[in-house]
């Protein structure tokens, strides 16, 4: 598995966000995407998640140009990717329903109808994978709670768990710890490393430089209209090739 954006051009209206930029995510690695607010971190993750078609360039999964493949194949690729959004948006349902959603849509229609019927009759059978995923973020005991009644931080962890529940090959995380306290940030970072060790490729957009240092193997620095520097985490932080990288990391950059 390798997911890659190659030489992508993208923008909204007349303003280009990317002017030919590339990024790849390989199995078992964590790539952190850092950069100032509004630079396009979320946009890049949406392109990688096959949400938006880039205006130019390609997004490739295992070398296949996804946007030139059939819609069926694109759906199949999409189902190998887990994406957690910056704005948490759980369904107005139980935590269990949220965590199981990805598994549910992968089932055949007869199976889904049967499950719905059983649920209607009050016989919910918690999918093991979904509960396991909730366990990794410490929320297994909340399965039967209403998602609407969760705290912001809990909701964010459920959003992570439901992306993990269907065993994706790639995880794309958009500031997944922005609402979390230090302890739960550590829980989530552990879960990221666990995912990585199980062979999942992870891309994580973050504003927290220390988090990038803690979890990432590689760091991509977004500035202006693309990635200005990408490399091993240590190199980027301790000995960046681009002076703007150093200024951004030190918080000196004025933009």
């Amino acid at each position, binding site marked *: 598995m390798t997911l890659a954006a190659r030489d992508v051009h993208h923008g909204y209206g007349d303003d280009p966000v990317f002017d030919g930029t590339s990024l790849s995510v390989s199995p078992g690695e964590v790539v952190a995407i850092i950069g100032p607010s509004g630079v396009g971190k979320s946009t890049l993750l949406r392109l990688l998640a096959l949400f938006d078609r880039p205006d130019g360039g390609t997004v490739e999964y295992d070398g296949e140009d996804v946007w030139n493949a059939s819609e069926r194949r694109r*759906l199949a690729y999409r189902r190998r990717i887990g994406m957690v*959004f910056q704005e948490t948006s759980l*369904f107005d*349902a139980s935590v269990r329903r949220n965590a199981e*959603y990805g598994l549910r849509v992968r089932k055949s229609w007869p199976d889904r109808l049967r499950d719905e019927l059983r*649920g*209607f009759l009050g016989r*919910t059978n918690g999918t093991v994978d979904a509960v396991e995923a909730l366990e990794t973020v410490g929320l297994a005991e909340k399965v039967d709670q209403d998602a609407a009644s969760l705290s912001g931080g809990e909701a964010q962890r459920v959003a992570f768990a439901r992306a993990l529940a269907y065993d994706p090959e790639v995880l794309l995380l958009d500031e997944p710890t922005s609402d979390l306290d230090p302890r739960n940030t550590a829980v989530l970072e552990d879960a990221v490393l666990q995912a990585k060790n199980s062979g999942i490729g992870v891309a994580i957009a973050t504003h927290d430089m220390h988090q990038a240092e803690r979890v990432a193997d590689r760091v991509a620095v977004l500035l202006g209209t693309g990635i200005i520097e990408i490399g091993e985490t240590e190199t980027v932080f301790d000995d960046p090739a681009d002076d703007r990288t150093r200024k951004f990391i030190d918080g000196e950059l004025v933009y």
Partner: protein
Amino acid sequence: MTVESSLVTPLLLEFPFEWTYLRSIVRVSLYVSLVAVALSTLCSLPIALAVGFTEFRGKTLLTSVINTGMGFPSVVVGLVVLFAVSNQGPLGSFDLVFTAEAMIVSQFVLATPVITGVSLAAVSSVERTVRDAAFAMGGTRVDVALVTIKEARYGIATAVLAGFGRAISEVGSVLIVGGNIVGPDGTSKTRTLTTAIQLEARQGRFETAMMLGAILVVLVLVVNAFVVRLGRGDGGYR
């Protein structure tokens, strides 16, 4: 008086109707309104979803056309439907003049803008991020639509109830296309609760009119309570 009606009499003092007659009126009212609302919901939901989630030129115009349709004069709808089902009209070959089915057509026309308009508002208020999440987790477009309907379920229930309320409590168009007919056997062919009330009132029988009115109100209440319960139970969605 039949045996059945004598059971009811103590409750309503002097019950002025044959039980079978009353039952047939209620049956026609419910048949027309429920079928019209069911068909209308089936049409309205896809329209609401399509209009809610796509950007196109004239969307604002279309939305205001739908909203105008919510308050469209029912007598006018009745006239148009009567013409449509008459011999010269496009539906003339179906022979629907003064039938319950013609009333279904006119109630369908009346209820659809209401159900579409209210569901459209409900569907549009579902956060984009919720739809994105369904898509991101591997949902197809159908899955995203289903999630949206579930998220908007209270608003959609309101829409259906509003449509039902309009259909069952309306007089003008059912009178025109149905004709308020009672068959030779003394049971209603196209007489509904509303047209019966209108008739009783015109003939000065206010008490009977009031009684029929009370039955109508109870019917609406029962259907509302049922739909609200259905929404609460939310089909194992929790």
